[in-house]
């Protein structure tokens, strides 16, 4: 590969890495400044998915001129796949437990659809119990 092409690849990789690092920094600032568990989860999901994927793309572009091994790119794809599959599971369970055990602030919610559903279910259960 020519030197100019390697330079262009390096600059693209650098942009991806910089964006990923800045997303991680934004998540750290959001962890400090946001008032609620749900809003903190909102900001914490940014480096876990998009930031890490950007860094993996930058790393793959950076590894292209140095390595000719195909398995490195395969490993990067697997890392991104596992992260995208596993992170929503943890987020879903943490948010569910946080809601059910009353650790979120209901005054910050614009619309609480789950509370309406749960109240309706409770009313039907009360009616069944009364019969």
């Amino acid at each position, binding site marked *: 590969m020519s030197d100019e092409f390697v330079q262009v690849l390096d600059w693209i990789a650098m942009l991806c890495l910089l964006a990923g690092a800045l997303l991680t920094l934004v998540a*750290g600032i959001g962890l400090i400044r946001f008032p609620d568990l749900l809003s903190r989860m909102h900001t914490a999901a940014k480096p876990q998915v998009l930031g890490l994927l950007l860094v993996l793309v930058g790393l793959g572009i950076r590894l292209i001129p140095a390595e000719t091994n195909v398995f490195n790119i395969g490993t990067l794809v697997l890392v991104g796949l596992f992260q995208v599959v596993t992170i929503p599971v943890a987020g879903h369970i943490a948010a569910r437990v946080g809601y*059910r055990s*009353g650790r979120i602030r209901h005054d910050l919610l614009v619309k609480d659809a789950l509370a309406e559903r749960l109240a309706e279910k409770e009313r039907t259960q009360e009616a069944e119990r009364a019969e």
Partner: protein
Amino acid sequence: MTALWIVISVALGVAALLGTVRLFLGPSILDRALSVDVLVASAMTGLGAYAAFNQDPTILPTLLVLALVGFTSSISISKFVARRPEEYVPPQSTTDETGTGARQSAPANGSDGSDGSGGSDGSNGSDAPEKEES
């Protein structure tokens, strides 16, 4: 180019420091689990940046292991916190009918279980983030 590498490393370090601050401050245990997740993500980002700086693919299996194992801590802490997943803590004051309905059902929940007092505690202090005794 070198200045941009320095910017990347400083941003990752500051993000890890802020995550550690939330780890110490966090009012509930779920906030702490969340900040640990952010710390794992920043560690993975830092490892990737290190590998990109050296053009060295030897630590890619470490990234793979972290991506596979990193979510188990949050799930296990959440499962530890959720003692009774069917127990519903009502919101603070949305309408009158949901509050009274939930309050009527609270002794019904406590009659079949032993720790029915936990629900009433959570409903009292749900406007302010409660202190954990962890």
